[in-house]
């Protein structure tokens, strides 16, 4: 049953919020020990569902009525443990609801639990959690990260929709590896108030779900300007879930992206699907030049290293339990110590300033491409995910972000839909759209079913 059918059933009284939540709590009980997608399960979820059923009887129902929503462990939910999957914050309980959580509750969504992730969102495998790795429910590979728990919870039917965050691909990468839908919104579309940040100039809160409708509906709920977050824009939030028909547009693919693909089977699959899509929607598929996108990884990491170092100075052991340097994963420590080192060596703008300049150049390249095409189509990762016990060196792990980072650097929106399986591993197709063009992005994503 897809999200739309389920909502119709709940609204018409054929399925109660209590029964919906109960089925997920049972599924969590059965599967979570093995998958390790949830770090915390909300004991009060059933009571909250009862209240929503009573509200429904009175004829009042929000957009997410009775749906079970999982939240990544770096987004504040009042009275729930928001540990960022770290030992640093293992005893920290949210003291307030993040803007996005407040909006979900207002629309009668039920927070069913807090999901596992790579420690402080540093990683693209899901193996860097201090509470054990998350398993991919679809295959014997890593689920991807850093929103590993959110993706695995959705893919294994332990919740209806999940929130994740995406700084360089942390929603799209696990969505692809777990065979589900994911979206990174445009920078400034969704409030980050209540998010424990990884890199303030790149982070965005986004959505993971089994279908495009559910993803679009959740985006409709969480989008919008907030007085709590000065980076949000005053842009109209369209009805994304209407999923209008798209026709006669220009779709773009790029040889620069093709060169970056380490597993040619992935690019061949994406190209085939793009050709099928262009025929289906009566659109042109053209090649576009994207100079400099091959430098995305080299641009992104110096920015993330410095901003993570700066953003984590508050975790000095005085206010939040443990000092981060003494209680985090190796990857977090690498980024913090590396960020400290290059901040010291910043004289003359050698690192951070240089990376910010390159960021602007890549953003310009991508925005120029959007003068010629409406959407860009590309893979999500350049190779299939590694096996859970196979440890990658840092640069090999960073290489997985080659196709996802450009969207963060340019501040545009990007979505992922599952399109096939290679060696038993799900593979997603990624679409880039102009900043604040989420409405058309969802419509196109819906055409690739």
């Amino acid at each position, binding site marked *: 049953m897809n999200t739309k059918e389920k909502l119709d059933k709940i609204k018409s009284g054929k399925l109660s919020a209590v029964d919906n939540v109960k089925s997920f709590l049972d599924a969590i009980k059965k599967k979570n020990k093995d998958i390790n997608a949830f770090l915390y399960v909300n004991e009060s979820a059933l009571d909250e569902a009862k209240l929503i059923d009573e509200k429904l009887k009175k004829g009042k129902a929000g957009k997410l009525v009775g749906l079970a929503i999982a939240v990544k462990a770096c987004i504040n939910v009042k009275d729930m443990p928001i540990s960022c999957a770290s030992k640093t914050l293992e005893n920290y309980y949210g003291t307030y609801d993040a803007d996005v959580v407040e909006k979900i509750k207002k629309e009668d969504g039920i927070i069913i639990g807090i999901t596992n992730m790579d420690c402080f969102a540093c990683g693209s495998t899901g193996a860097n959690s201090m509470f054990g790795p998350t398993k991919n429910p679809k295959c014997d590979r890593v689920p991807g990260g850093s929103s590993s728990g959110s993706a695995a919870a959705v893919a294994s039917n332990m919740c209806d929709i999940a929130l994740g965050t995406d700084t360089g691909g942390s929603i799209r990468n696990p969505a692809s590896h777990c065979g589900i839908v994911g979206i990174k919104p445009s920078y400034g579309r969704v409030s980050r108030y209540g998010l424990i940040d990884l890199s303030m100039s790149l982070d965005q809160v986004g959505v993971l779900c089994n279908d495009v409708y559910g993803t679009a509906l959740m985006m409709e709920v969480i989008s919008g300007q907030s007085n709590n977050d000065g980076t949000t824009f005053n842009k109209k939030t369209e009805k994304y879930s209407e999923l209008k028909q798209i026709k006669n547009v220009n779709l773009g693919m790029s040889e620069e992206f093709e060169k970056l693909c380490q597993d040619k089977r992935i690019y061949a699959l994406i190209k085939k699907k793009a050709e099928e899509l262009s025929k289906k929607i009566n659109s042109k598929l053209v090649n576009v030049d994207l100079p400099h996108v091959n430098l995305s990884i080299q641009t992104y990491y110096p920015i993330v290293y410095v901003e993570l170092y700066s953003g984590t100075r508050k975790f000095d052991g005085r206010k939040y339990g443990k000092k981060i340097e003494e209680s985090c994963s190796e990857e977090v420590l690498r980024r913090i110590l590396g960020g400290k*080192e290059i901040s010291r060596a910043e004289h003359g703008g050698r690192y951070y300033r*240089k990376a910010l300049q390159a960021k602007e150049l890549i953003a310009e390249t991508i925005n120029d491409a959007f003068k010629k095409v409406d959407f860009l189509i590309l893979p999500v990762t350049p190779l299939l995910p590694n096996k859970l016990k196979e440890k990658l060196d840092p640069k090999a792990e960073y290489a997985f972000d080659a196709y996802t980072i450009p969207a963060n650097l340019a501040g545009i929106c990007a979505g992922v839909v599952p399109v096939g399986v290679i060696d038993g591993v799900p593979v997603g197709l990624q679409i880039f759209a102009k900043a604040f063009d989420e409405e058309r992005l969802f419509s196109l994503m819906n055409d690739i079913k």
Partner: protein
Amino acid sequence: MATKEEIVIQAKKIMDEFISALSKVNVKEKFGAERDLQVRTPSKEVTDSTEFRKRIFKNAPKIKDDYFLMEKKEW
């Protein structure tokens, strides 16, 4: 797990490699994130701090002799 020293060396090596790749690209000298207004110019040294001292003592929640006591969340 590698030692802190090893991690720093490894991280610095990665950053140097990455930045060296970027050095081949011609980037604009000035860009959006830089604003002249953000540059602070040194002002005259403030010699008379009596006013400031009076004001801060007036605002302090607790005072003992010539210093004030700070308590979390009380300021």
